[in-house]
């Protein structure tokens, strides 16, 4: 069986404590993963200041070039994996095996990560608002006619990662180019992507010390977030609520992303069904940027019916089927519990599982040892219904009718909002809303991300701060 070691500032360490991730279909152990004990993590932190100092010796330009090389290695090379190696195809198979994601979805996420690494200069331009990166190397300089000085807020970025979709790993990657050592805690079912990214960076010439990889338990994850000067945590509300008020930690919880159609466009709703359906179902509905709500002033029942009919065509297929469009749950019990929870929500009057009437069949489908939750469109008669504004780890969306004047307040926290409207007043209200992370005007899929435009926090602002600066010694712009 494959064994993934801990990486202690790049150095492999084979722990006595090991966890196993199983193949989602056979339930047989697929990989052993060394587990880091809390004391080991704490001890390694004692050296991180030196590592940060070493990273400061690289220029931003050098690091961006390393990222571009790492992109190629990540996408196509055979890279070290424990005491063996892993090809790009084996990476896809392994990630699919333990997460349940079909191969085509893993490949799309792989391409997404490759894209971020290859275009790191553009990503940093977006994050820094077009700052000359040489200013970060020198510590100060002139930007748009003003003297600026930036300093790194932390010696490390700690990231507690999820297992739902490999694409999230593109979020921490820019930290390397921003000269920040990384301390990663991989998800239990998805240890592959961060390990492979690290190996790609190292092959590209990055200092191994910049990467710590600690599969660990809940206590270890907490230790990483407490010890790192800055952190990111992914997970559901119960996982992330502890960190919600800690300004050092960027919380990536549920997205509750949505599509709204304005009064001016609602009668043209059939034109937007494809965009809405893709927002709900692409990447098997696993991302926080997948839409889980469709909020409209009228035609709600008809829109729900059209979405349900379109998504009912999505049925389980083999993991390597290029047409596969839905992933099974790695743990069937999670699917069963989630299904029961949805049934409970729907037992309250005023909501209908429209997909059940549109040819989907049972929501919970068990095929060849795998449990799937098939796309579910729920029509809610009121925004107050408990099934409205819910998010699950599969293609689920509620369609809700509500008057436009109630929006955007009634939407609640929304990571991505696609607003299909040309009503300038409505657009202005949406632009002024504080609870919307990313705003798309027009029929743009919620999952369509532009990487130079960060949502859910700006990594540069998270890692760097600006200080006042003057110099009597030399011209600042020199």
């Amino acid at each position: 069986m494959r064994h993934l070691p801990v990486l202690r500032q790049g150095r492999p360490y084979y722990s006595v404590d090991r966890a196993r991730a199983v193949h989602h279909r056979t339930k047989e152990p697929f990989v052993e993963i060394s587990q880091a004990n809390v004391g080991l993590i704490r001890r390694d932190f004692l050296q991180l200041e030196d590592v940060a100092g070493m990273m400061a010796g690289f220029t931003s330009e050098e690091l961006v070039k390393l990222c571009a090389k790492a992109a190629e290695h990540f996408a196509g090379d055979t890279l070290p994996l424990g005491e063996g190696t892993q090809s790009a195809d084996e990476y896809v198979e392994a990630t699919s095996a333990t997460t349940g994601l079909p191969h085509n979805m893993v490949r799309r996420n792989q391409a997404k990560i490759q894209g971020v690494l290859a275009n790191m200069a553009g990503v940093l331009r977006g994050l820094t608002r077009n700052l000359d990166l040489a200013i970060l190397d020198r510590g100060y300089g002139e930007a748009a006619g003003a003297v600026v000085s930036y300093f790194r807020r932390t010696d490390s970025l700690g990231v507690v990662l999820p297992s739902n979709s490999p694409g999230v790993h593109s979020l921490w990657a820019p930290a390397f180019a921003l000269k920040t050592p990384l301390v990663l805690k991989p998800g239990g079912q998805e240890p592959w992507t961060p390990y492979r990214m690290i190996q790609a960076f190292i092959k590209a010439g990055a200092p191994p010390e910049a990467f710590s990889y600690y599969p660990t338990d809940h206590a270890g994850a907490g230790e990483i977030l407490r010890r790192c000067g800055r952190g990111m945590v992914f997970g559901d509300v119960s996982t992330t609520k502890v960190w919600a008020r800690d300004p050092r930690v960027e919380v990536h919880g549920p997205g509750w992303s949505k599509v709204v159609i304005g009064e001016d466009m609602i009668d043209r709703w059939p034109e937007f069904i494809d965009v809405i359906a893709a927002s709900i179902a692409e990447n098997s509905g696993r991302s926080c940027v997948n839409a889980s709500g469709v909020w409209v002033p009228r035609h709600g029942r008809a829109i729900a019916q059209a979405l349900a009919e379109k998504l009912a065509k999505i049925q389980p297929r083999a993991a390597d089927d290029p047409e596969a469009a839905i992933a099974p749950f790695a743990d069937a019990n999670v699917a069963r519990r989630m299904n029961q929870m949805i049934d409970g929500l729907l037992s309250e009057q005023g909501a209908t599982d429209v997909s059940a009437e549109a040819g989907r069949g049972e929501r919970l489908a068990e095929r060849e040892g795998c449990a799937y939750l098939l796309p579910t469109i729920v029509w809610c008669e009121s925004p107050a219904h408990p099934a409205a504004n819910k998010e699950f780890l599969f293609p689920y969306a509620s369609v809700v009718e509500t008057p436009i004047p109630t929006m955007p307040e009634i939407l609640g926290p929304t990571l991505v909002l696609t607003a299909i409207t040309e009503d300038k007043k409505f657009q202005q209200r949406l632009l002024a809303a504080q609870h919307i992370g990313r705003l798309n005007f027009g029929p743009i899929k919620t999952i369509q991300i532009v990487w130079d435009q960060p949502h859910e926090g700006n990594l540069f602002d998270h890692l760097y701060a600006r200080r006042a600066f003057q110099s009597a010694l030399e011209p600042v712009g020199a």
Partner: protein
Amino acid sequence: MQERVTAHKSALDAHVREIVEWHFNPETGCPFWLDFAAKAGWDPRKEIHCYEDLDKFGFFEDEKLRGGPVRQWVPKGLAHLPTYIFETGGSTGVPKSRVQMNDFRTDYEMFSHTLPDEAFPKGADWLMVGPSGPRRLRLAVEHLAQYRGGICFMIDLDPRWVVKLLKWGEFDMAERYKQHVVDQALTLLKAHDNIQCMFTTPKLLEAMCEKVNLRKLGIKGIFCGGTEMTPQFHRFAVEEMLDGIYFAPTYGNTLMGLATHKAPTKEDNWAIIYYPPTPRAVLEVVEPDNPTKVVPYGATGRVRLTTLTKETFVPRFLERDECEREAPCDQYPWDGVRNVRPFQKLGTNVVVGVY
């Protein structure tokens, strides 16, 4: 080996008869067990002949130890002796408690004989960095130090406060409290050259070793316990923290006393293997769903404790721990336990290992 195992079993059966006679004799027994016998409809002194016969008592519920009257546990035969009350570790609410007169001394004197003199020199002083207050460890470690000719330095540690801080989500404050404890310990270590031996818990040991090299401060032997230890912690401690200091992991609690560890071998792969202080206490590994049945050697099960001293009789108590059953070895010709850890099947949210 088989002869030694058999001889040990005969000695255990004789010990069981002696202890049952003591606890159920109206002249010497404690009110709790005498009352039990009066209501049970059977006489333990007549029906208990060997260790297996203790199954007749069923499983002991430790809730009986919560609250009073604590004098119901004092054997009449020992009522003339000064009595101590010891409480369980980090629990909140009404604590479970155990009365004792001399058991803690006896247990730790027996344990003392398992410690190598070169690592725990006779006459060397000790530092106790563990839970204080109403806990048995506090007096027991001091007695251990004195028994070996040393003086025991102490710090205060209130694990119940740590539990509260963690339940409130006050992780920073818990960390600061830990550092407060560690700072006191290091101050004592730096001020007293003759401190060469230490008791501490895994987390406090880690915290101290992040700040100093304990060997360079004169520590030669560390007796570690109080909370769960994993094989990985064992390896990490030996390879990275202790710089050659002798490491003696132990498993114990207020009800049992303490179990000593078997010297690790390469084949053990850092497993921590403990043997109870039989015949005073017996540890067995039983099927979780049928705790009357002992699992085969190497199999996983729930820890079942039977305490058999003149001060305390606790038959068939199911611990909140699980482990693998370990075969007798040269040093200990009776069953041991391997890699003790919290019992998963209980599924309760127990805060463990907080200090």
